[in-house]
């Protein structure tokens, strides 16, 4: 039952072959049995889930069920959930019970989905390995000595280990796509502004975007249908009509122009990963696509630009965690200054503090022009690179990550190496474009992700290509050993 996709579960529920309560109990039992070795959940909301499941079953009996009604999911612990701890993987929010629901949470609940719990993540979404969590590292279900990627590592791990049929994630520089790639699942980062950020704890506001992590592209389309759309509570939310992402899934790929940026196939790319990507491209050519080489000449600047813009925004976004109103507060502060220093010194982990310091520095008087302003200028160049490329191609493809999942602790001592694992994903956030990662094969027995990058609001096209690819391949149906 846990191997079924959302679409299949939806059909099973529709035909009365199972109930939401049964499904929910099944997944709760799997979490109970398997998650101690994976650490993908921070909080499991079993009772609430069963209540929601029974309510979904009752709604179905009244004839009020939609395609996602009664299907369980997990939320990344960055989304505020009313009455449930929303920790963001940090000691700072270990005691924070959100008094409100994020828009994404609200919409998926309105669609009838059942929340199993909240998934583990890099602290405040800062990381590429899910090792910086206050709740300990998440493990890759394919090899527990390896990381699942990050920051949405808990969500990707939970879907890969079939602890949840779907999960939400957020992606600021690759945090949906990279863990999806490393865990062998499908993850889409929509266009900036497509999914409301209201209630999503902010890391870097101009880059953050929520999206689903699922087994298949079709499931991602179903989830996105419910998650996306204009939200008056988010001023950066796009005022566009809602789309049905499932409608064009089956469209033929004949004549599709695939752009391959040569910068994505440089010396930093693991040869095993490169072979998988080349094979995937061949598969798409067989479906009627045509390959064109394109240039994204400023790609090498995306990491330095990102590590100015994202820390700058985070240094300001995380200022609210001051021990005054909620969350962690140091014991017996001597005065206000001591309250601030110790609360933040004790409440934040090393990576978060590193980025707050980088960002504070970048915004400081005398450095602003050289760092923040310059970074914004280069960000425009990166966007222009993509615009030019999209004049010639329909979609850009390449690897999601330069390597397969690395070992726990392998990169924690060297932040730069860690940052480089997002080399192919970061520029997509800087340009505000949609990107999807889908399972495309294995290298050294570990999953490899193929990344597809689309034009602004081109999610439907990405899902269509991914879906067609998944109809002729079965990488997305492979499951890690030892999860049954």
């Amino acid at each position: 039952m846990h191997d079924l996709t959302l679409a299949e579960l939806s059909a099973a529920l529709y035909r009365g072959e199972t109930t939401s309560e049964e499904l929910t109990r099944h997944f709760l039992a799997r979490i109970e049995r398997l998650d101690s070795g994976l650490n993908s959940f921070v909080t499991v909301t079993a009772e609430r889930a069963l209540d929601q499941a029974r309510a979904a079953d009752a709604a179905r009996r009244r004839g009020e069920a939609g395609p996602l009604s009664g299907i369980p999911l997990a939320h990344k612990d960055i989304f505020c959930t009313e009455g449930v701890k929303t920790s963001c993987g940090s000691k700072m929010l270990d005691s924070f019970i959100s008094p409100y629901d994020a828009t994404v949470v609200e919409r998926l609940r309105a669609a009838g989905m059942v929340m199993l719990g909240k998934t583990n993540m890099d602290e405040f979404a800062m990381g590429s390995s899910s090792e910086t969590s206050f709740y300990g590292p998440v493990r890759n279900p394919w090899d527990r000595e390896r990381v699942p990627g990050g920051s949405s590592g808990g969500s990707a791990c939970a879907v890969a280990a079939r602890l949840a049929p779907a999960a939400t994630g957020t992606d600021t520089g690759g945090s949906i796509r990279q863990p999806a790639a490393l865990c062998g699942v499908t993850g889409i980062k929509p266009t900036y502004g497509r999914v409301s950020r209201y209630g999503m704890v902010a890391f870097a506001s101009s880059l953050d975007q929520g999206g689903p992590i699922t087994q298949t592209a079709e499931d991602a389309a179903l989830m996105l249908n419910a998650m996306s759309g204009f939200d008056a509570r988010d001023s950066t939310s796009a005022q566009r009509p809602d789309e049905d992402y499932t409608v064009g899934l089956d469209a033929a790929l004949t004549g599709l122009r695939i752009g391959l940026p040569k910068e994505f196939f440089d010396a930093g790319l693991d040869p095993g990963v490169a072979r998988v990507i080349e094979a995937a491209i061949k598969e798409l050519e067989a479906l009627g696509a045509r390959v064109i080489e394109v240039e994204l000449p400023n790609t090498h600047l995306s990491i330095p630009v990102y590590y100015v813009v994202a820390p700058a925004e985070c240094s300001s976004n995380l200022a609210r965690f001051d021990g005054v109103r909620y969350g962690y507060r140091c014991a017996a502060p001597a005065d206000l200054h001591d309250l601030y220093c110790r609360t933040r010194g004790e409440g934040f982990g090393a990576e978060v503090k590193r980025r707050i310091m980088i960002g504070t520095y970048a915004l400081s008087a005398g450095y602003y022009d050289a760092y923040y302003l310059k970074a914004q200028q280069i960000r425009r160049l990166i966007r222009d690179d993509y615009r030019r490329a999209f004049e010639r191609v329909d979609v850009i493809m390449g690897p999601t990550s330069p390597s397969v999942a690395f070992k726990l602790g392998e990169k924690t001592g060297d932040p730069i190496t860690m940052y480089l694992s997002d080399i192919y994903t970061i520029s997509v956030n800087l340009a505000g474009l949609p990107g999807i990662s889908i399972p495309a094969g294995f290298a050294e027995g570990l999953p490899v992700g193929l990344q597809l990058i689309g034009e602004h609001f081109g999610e439907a096209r990405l899902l269509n290509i991914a879906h067609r690819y998944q109809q002729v391949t079965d990488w997305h149906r492979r499951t890690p050993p030892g999860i049954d």
Partner: protein
Amino acid sequence: MTDKGWEPVIGLEIHAQLATQSKIFSGAPTAYGAPPNTQACAVDLGLPGVLPVLNREAVRMAVRFGLAIEARVSRRSVFARKNYFYPDLPKGYQISQYELPIVAAGHTEITLEDGGTKRVGITRAHLEEDAGKSLHEDFHGMSGIDLNRAGTPLLEIVSEPDLRSAKEAVTYMRKIHTLVRYLGICDGNMQEGSFRCDANVSVRKTGEARLGTRAEVKNLNSFRFVERAICHEIERQIALLEAGGTVVLETRLYDPDRDETRPMREKEEANDYRYFPDPDLLPLVLSEDFIEAQRADLPELPDAKRQRFIAQYGLPAYDAAVLCASRELADFYEGAVAASGGQAKPCANWVMVEVLGALNREAKEIGQCPISPTMLGGLVRRITDGTISGKIAKEVFEAMWQGEGDADAVIEARGLKQISDEGAIAALIDEVLRDNPTQVAQYRQGKEQVLAFFVGHVMKKSRGKANPQRLNALLRERLGAG
């Protein structure tokens, strides 16, 4: 102040709280005086994940102000974050405008004491959110935080350093105060902090072109404090410079109890605000249509109204200025004139002396005046048509103030109708003359002063109702004839 060859240079930063129903970036109400933290929603509390949404009404108000001071209203302005830590600043930053404010390069004219005018430049006016309040009493060594005020919309109005004395500064501040109330964008309530200012003060040798080092004086929430704080600061700086010292660029607080300014603690000051554009808010883009709709909707502004009062009603400049001090007062006056049948100057006198006097006596605003403009106009009408004398009219006014009805009702009920009938007045005169033969003789010997004695007695007999002009004429006639 400009003694000993020193010239003060002053610029004001006025904070006007915009009179919106809800906050600038959230839907929480802005009403004053609610119990602590009852008017702060998730957004105002800076909870994780919340986002700001700009209040359209605040934008409309800022645009109206910009148009009223003939400023450049920015077609594109940008909200920026001003980052600093303080317990009553929930997000750790204040959303304000920095490089691209909504209003830039405006001006207004003030009337100086000598009757001349002066143009004061307004560098910019920008939208921002207010912080909450820290409460240091009643918390036993701790501080309480009230976030009701957090997120209240403010328009910060920054003048050029065009002001040259404390008096000019106050005149300018009053002018802006009048303007924002005319525009209906601020209630101007200074006790509640809806209208307050910081003053940038420096001095330089008369004739010197370069500006001296300035100090910023904060915490000025009354016209009187502005004047006293600036005076004090000017004197302090002159004394310092004359003693061979130098003025330090710093922020000072005005303490009204001790009538002095003193430096704020270093800690509160030493901030690098790390301004950067707020990524949660898109640049604010205004269409021509929106701006033109605001322009079309502007009320008559104080300067224009004053000019019109002088031209249309033939009022002296002083009267026009007093009557145009607020839109409500000007409307009251115009209502009275209409009801009086066009008695412009008498109405002006009645409003300025009796109405304002009575309001002042009872510490009331014009909006709380128990006499309506129509009632006052009716009273003036009864004076002009001779029904009552000006003296009786004051009695009628008091009765109207006490709620005894309009002028006609009071005159009727109290029997105050003026006696204009010559026969009746003549009968009273004859009676008085008969009773006072000595005085009649004195008058006839040329002692004209006794005329007042007769007038007084006749008035007394008429209980004040005799028409004074008729009385005078008849009295002279009778005495002459005798």
